[in-house]
């Protein structure tokens, strides 16, 4: 009668160690994350009041040409409340939006009043609405109030393609117009329609968001309260 040879293949442990391994891995990750939060706590980024405004890099038209523009280059990180500093007004606009067309004059007036204390930035978007087809030439014409398009409703020009951009209400604008035709900045700021404004403190934190004011405060009041301090 043949004898069976004893097997020498090692067997695994009786208990399942996978739970212990998972706990150990989670423990390592938790310790590491906790250390990061202590050493360098994350800032809350977002478009809401009290949050750090989302940064962006995009091309901007400054009247002379298109150049790279980065929002955080405008920030004064050392600024503290009560100090003098340059606030930042971000306006989202579409050169074909009739409300933005009319707001052109308001923006001119605001800039002549607050331009010394507030940096103005217009974010030019193209909403997916019929007649809102735009290009950089239209942004330039809208900003500079120059001849672009016709007065007939043929789709060429500003204000839903129904107006020559030279007729935009208000004076020519003397601040950066940022190209956001890919709508990345619009999405980061949670903007659903134009015109839309956000006022930032000099250190980049959102002081006032039009969508959060619930209609109780307009931009003139916000500038008076946050920039002027009364």
């Amino acid at each position, binding site marked *: 009668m043949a004898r069976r040879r004893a097997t020498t293949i090692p067997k695994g442990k009786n208990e399942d160690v996978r739970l212990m391994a998972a706990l150990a891995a989670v423990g390592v990750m938790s310790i*590491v994350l906790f250390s990061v939060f202590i050493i360098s706590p994350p800032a809350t980024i977002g478009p809401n009041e009290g949050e*750090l405004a989302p940064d962006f890099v995009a091309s901007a038209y400054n009247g002379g040409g298109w150049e790279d523009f980065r929002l955080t280059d405008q920030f004064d990180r050392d600024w503290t409340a009560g100090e003098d500093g340059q606030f930042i007004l971000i306006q989202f606009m579409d050169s074909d939006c009739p409300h933005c067309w009319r707001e052109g004059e308001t923006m001119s007036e605001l800039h002549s009043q607050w331009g010394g204390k507030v940096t103005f930035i217009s974010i030019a978007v193209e909403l997916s609405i019929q007649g809102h087809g735009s290009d950089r030439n239209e942004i330039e014409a809208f900003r500079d109030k120059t001849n672009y398009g016709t007065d007939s409703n043929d789709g060429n020009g500003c204000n839903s393609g129904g107006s020559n951009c030279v007729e935009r209400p208000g004076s020519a604008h003397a601040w950066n117009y940022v190209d956001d035709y890919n709508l990345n900045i619009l999405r980061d700021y949670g903007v659903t329609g134009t015109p839309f404004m956000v006022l930032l403190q000099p250190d980049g934190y959102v002081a006032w968001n039009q969508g959060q004011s619930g209609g109780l405060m307009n931009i003139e009041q916000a500038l008076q309260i946050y920039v002027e301090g009364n």
Partner: protein
Amino acid sequence: MNTDYLSEPIFLVLLAGLLSSSYLSINAKNQTGSERTNTLVTSALAFSLTGILTSAVTYAIYNSMISKGYSSLCSSNGFISCADVIGDPSFNTLLSLPWGLIGISGFGLLLYLVLSIRMDPHARWVSNHLDYSWYASIVGMIIVGFLIIVELVFVDGAPHICAYCTVAHLSMIGFLVSAHNLREHKANDDW
């Protein structure tokens, strides 16, 4: 070329982790049987831990860049410049998650897979975990490839190379090699 990193203690610690892991991986070539198994698993563990720690440093740099505009851990000019890479708002997150956080999670998963093998190398599920490690590290390599292209082509003022990110990328490559060697070793019945 910016060589400030070579006097930065945190960078040197991470580099030491990477070199130790690589040494273990290379050293395993001369071994057989369970000794080789243990060395390869330890090497994979070391790569994943180095990856977690490096990702944590890049996450800390990201937080600092966002809130202060600078980080004391990295320079902001020249070809080797982590500030220009981690500070680029267009590419420093994926679905609003900083890459450092994604790195911690990814390497954490790899750590779990190899740690469980280290705790019980003869369990029935070891082959499955080796396969998962291999597939996960292939996904990791695709991400590393994408990030290297971003560094060299797409970030503001490209090309730039982030030294800390490179340590994390090399950890991923090292893990991939260890995972591959472990699978082969298992298949050869020399476990």
